[in-house]
């Protein structure tokens, strides 16, 4: 994967801020003069469905990532990371939240979710780099669970896999987010980045 051209597949559950995170990363790229296109599917998201979106850096024109074409999978929920894994080409990278949001069948006791250990094993089977980030916990430390999405973005920008650094993300936040939530989101980015840097 070239550092300057990356296809990033986002996976999450409605209400997690996956689409907000998508737009934020795309804006950060644009602010830095990196060619960018992003894509999202709307509609059922707010009703607990799977949310899939994409950010493509470095000159792609289509916003769609097909199976086997993603360089990075960014999973905002652990089981959705596993579901999204076929989008990744072997040797790609995964950044995933360790948090679970149980789907209805699991809540109803009819089905079971895979364990985090099983998800990590499946991921490590096919990727060169993976990070499992306790996003909700770090977000609470930053000030609110609502920042779990920016924790993961901060982690992504600290990996060196894309031409954006945590500071680029924070600069974009300065004009993209409301001042009320800015400092906690800065902190969330820092905590996500620190998690990656500590290896």
């Amino acid at each position, binding site marked *: 994967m070239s550092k300057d051209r990356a296809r990033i597949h986002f996976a999450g*559950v409605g209400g997690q801020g996956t689409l907000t995170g*998508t*737009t934020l990363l*795309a*804006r950060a790229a*644009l602010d830095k003069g990196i*060619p*960018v*296109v*992003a*894509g*999202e*599917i*709307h*509609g*059922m998201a*707010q*009703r*607990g*469905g*799977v949310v899939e979106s994409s950010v493509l850096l470095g*000159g*792609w*024109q*289509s*916003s*769609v990532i*097909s*199976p*086997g*074409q993603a360089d990075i999978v960014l999973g905002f929920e652990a*089981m959705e990371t*596993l*579901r999204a*894994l*076929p*989008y*990744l*080409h*072997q*040797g*790609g990278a995964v950044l995933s939240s360790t948090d679970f949001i*149980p*789907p*209805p*069948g*699991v*809540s*109803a*006791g009819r*089905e*079971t*979710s*895979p364990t985090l250990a099983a998800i990590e094993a*499946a*991921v490590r*089977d*096919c*990727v060169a780099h993976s990070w499992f980030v306790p996003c909700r916990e770090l977000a609470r430390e930053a000030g609110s669970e609502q920042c779990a999405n920016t924790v993961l973005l901060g982690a992504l920008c600290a990996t060196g896999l894309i031409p954006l650094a945590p500071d680029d993300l924070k600069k974009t936040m300065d004009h993209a987010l409301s001042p009320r939530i800015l400092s906690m989101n800065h902190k969330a980015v820092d905590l996500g980045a620190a998690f990656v840097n500590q290896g």
Partner: protein
Amino acid sequence: MSHHLLSAEPGPHLLLGNEAIVRGALEAGVGVVSCYPGTPSSEVPDTFRMLRESGRFYMEYSTNEKVALEVAGGAALGGAMALVTMKHVGLNVAADPLFTMCYTGLPGGLVVLSADDPGCHSSQDEQDNRSYARFAQLPCFEPATAQEAKDMTRDAFLLARETGQPVLLRTTTRISHLRGPVTFGPLPETAAPLVPFIRNPQRFVPVPAVSRLRHKVLVGNMEAIREKAETSPWNREYGSGKLGVIASGVARSYLRDVLLAEGWENEVRVLELGFSWPLPLERIAAFAGSVEKLLVLEESEPLVERDVRALAQQKGIRTPIFGKGGNLTVFLEYSFPQVREALALLLGKTIRPDTACAGAERELPQRPPNLCAGCAHRAVYYSVRQVFGDEAFYSSDIGCYTLGLLPPLAAADFLFCMGSSISAGSGFAKSSGKTTLAFIGDSTFFHSGITGLVNAVFNKHDILVIILDNGTTAMTGHQPNPGVDQRLLGEDCVHLDIEAVVRGCGVSQVVKVKPSNTKAMRSALETMKERSGVRVIIAEEPCALFARRVLKKNHDRCAFVAEQDESVRRAAAELACPAFACSKDGVSVDASLCAGCMVCMQIARGFTARKKDGQ
């Protein structure tokens, strides 16, 4: 007012495709906007709504797409540049006036946005509305990037005003919902000046004698527009090589990406069709004649392909033509790997196989879209199943309430389109003799349910209609409709009382209930079950999301399980409320999800209420 879409700064700005369309329309000088919301088109009118205080244009949410097109068409006759927006199936509703407008022309300039949905991300079909460009005769633009979405919208308006012919702007889900950089052009101070209406019944009143003449005018105008398409900058060539590709729509993007990724830029010559109807026939003929093989790349139907094949036959062009076939089908969306494979085959290349990660070893639990916690539709469906069970047949309609189709609610047996529940249910009951219920939401009732209700009364049908009145257009993002509370509509719109409309349609058996009151709901259903003819129950209760976000109504109570008994387990199974969690220890209620509707408490004595968060 300041909004980034009104900015004088050229940018680039990161915009959703649908937002870029709004900016393009403003740059052209749009004066009137009408719509019926529908994914993936809804952000266009919703963005205009946010900008309406700029005073640049008039905008409305019309009651359906036909009405929206007629309002916009009338506005264009009145001299304004007008935009009407809808999803692809909406254009079926609006098709009748569309055809006539192409005959008469509209001097102010009308652009029709059709947002198509190949792959049925949120629709009942994959219809390709480029067919309407051919069928009704509308010039058609198909953007593939956010920048093009803005620029083509502007150019569509300029063409519509210059020629007086309505213009189709056709997007697909991927274009409406991509985000990309957009550099702005100049924004005029105000809307474009009105083109004064000159009374001319010999043109604008299409009685047969007029229509025969106007048909000829239309064909002449389209021929003149084809000449523009021949030299339009939106139909452009790039690359070099013996393989020629004619690409349109989103396929243009996949093609560019494949050429970039594989380094095939010098092996393929491309003709991109952005201004895709009428086809630039001379340009296509010259292009087709100058390559050794020709591939037509277009998602959905092989429309360009058929025209290119016909053209080749007519002009004696012997170049082999490829299009649909192999991995390029009419189904779903095209993709980067599909286009790469098709090109590789024609170029005689081998491609490295993709090495996708394997993913899960077993099928993962799904996340089917579900009715929200506290959704009144769940309360209705629960009571309906208690009273009618599988004895009755359920004619559903389009809205959130369609999500009641899955068990345990299982409240949808058939569905055609917006507004079909009452009329399709009437026909079903007539032929089958089965007890039939129709479910229809408030916005859908105003969209096209009323005519079905009038028909049911007029023709003495036997149907129980349940109007699920949640006070908003919930599915598409809480747009206004005539049923919305007057206090929320503000001064620009007038609330219509659904019960008065129903009675005005001649229905005498009408009752209004609050479905979260399960006793009242059940008794209304039992009463109506004993009767025959056209009966209407108006189940009135605000959408739970709308109540929280817009009405700022938060229940201070939530349910919790006081006693794990059989009633609790049964209620959890029969309601399938997303706030419930079941485990080997029993049922629990997630207080952060519980909306406090207390339906569970009424049907199972093991539930009780408590204040939320120590309130």
